[in-house]
């Protein structure tokens, strides 16, 4: 659905490229996570993809045509959620949504969305009187009001309580199930792990890894099983490799010991994030030295 080839970008006042030759593609119906440290190039990439920055080098193909050949039809097709809450503070939630609705040819009934996100009773309140969480939920309604096919979400659950974050995540998964495509940026690794089909790690303007969360966990995890057991009233730990767990001594161990916990050596996305982007930081330090 969207292919990025050899993308470079430099801000007009900057001497160096902030995006350095990145390549990736996003399939239709996929949730694609884009992760990296602050200032790694995530927001710049998103701004290029939503056409807020235009003087890039490289190629971006959306639905078989260069992105810069699109104009209004592209904006009819997409929904963009910015990191910060966006609303006219002196207008009510409903007035805000009605203003944006008038800009699109296709719109949805916002009442069910407001109800689901717990804003229905407050829809005639001024947006400026909303809490941060309410403003973020209003943002999410605004993103969906043109019935988009492609969502660009920047930290969509940041600042939400766990209950509302759950609702937003369920809505993202339902959007995907209905055939929608999502480009997601987030620092909340639990959300990324739960939502994304594939993730890309960007560091220092370059892509360091692209794969599914599962494959990355296998790649970066240890192929071991760690067992905690109690012996002579003392807590002990033993580690077995994947090859060892198929052998008789391992079964004997399980039968004879008083096992308390068994953990696989699978790593978390958070650890992978630190490993992948941490390496980049060392590289950066070495270069600047």
């Amino acid at each position, binding site marked *: 659905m969207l292919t990025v080839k050899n993308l470079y970008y430099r801000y007009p006042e900057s001497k160096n490229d902030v995006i350095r030759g990145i390549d990736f593609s996003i399939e239709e119906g996929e949730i694609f996570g884009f992760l990296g440290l602050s200032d790694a190039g995530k927001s710049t990439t998103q701004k290029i993809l*939503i*056409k*807020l920055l235009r003087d890039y080098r490289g190629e971006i193909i959306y639905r078989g045509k260069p992105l810069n050949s699109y*104009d*209004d*039809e592209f*904006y*009819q097709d*997409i929904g*963009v959620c*910015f990191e*910060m*809450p*966006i*609303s*006219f*503070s*002196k*207008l009510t939630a409903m*007035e805000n949504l009605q*203003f*944006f609705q*008038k*800009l*699109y*040819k296709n719109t949805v009934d916002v009442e069910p969305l407001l109800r689901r996100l717990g804003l229905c009773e407050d829809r005639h309140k001024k947006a400026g009187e909303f809490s941060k969480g309410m403003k973020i939920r209003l943002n999410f309604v*605004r993103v969906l009001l043109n019935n988009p096919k492609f969502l660009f979400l920047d930290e969509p659950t940041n600042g939400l309580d766990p209950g509302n974050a759950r609702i937003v995540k369920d809505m993202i998964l339902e959007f995907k199930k209905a055939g929608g495509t999502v480009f997601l940026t987030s620092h909340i690794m639990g959300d990324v792990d739960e939502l994304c089909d594939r993730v890309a790690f960007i560091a220092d303007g370059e892509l360091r890894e692209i794969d599914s969360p599962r494959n990355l966990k296998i790649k970066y995890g240890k192929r071991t099983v760690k067992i905690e057991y109690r012996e002579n009233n003392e807590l002990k730990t033993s580690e077995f490799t994947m090859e060892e767990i198929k052998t008789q001594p391992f079964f004997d161990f399980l039968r004879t010991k008083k096992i308390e916990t068994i953990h696989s050596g699978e790593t978390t996305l958070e650890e992978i994030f630190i490993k992948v982007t941490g390496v980049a930081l060392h590289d950066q330090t070495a270069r600047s030295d």
Partner: protein
Amino acid sequence: MTRLPVLIKGEFDRLKKYNLFTTNMVVLVFWVLLAWFLEGEVLLEFIPSIFLMESIMMTILLVGATLFYEKKEHTINSIMVSPRQRK
């Protein structure tokens, strides 16, 4: 159909909601009162300065209010990723 009329109407609605029209009216009343107390010939001398001051003051007020609220509301980006035309 372009979205320009929608944007202009939205802008007027917000000028009303954000009390910028009211402020404008207060300033207008101030100029009318000033004109009331001035003699005809003196008033004619003052009129160019009044027009100049009025337009400068209103521009400063509008730009200031726009910048102040944009810092809190971030709405320009959202409008920039919306379509220009509705068909």
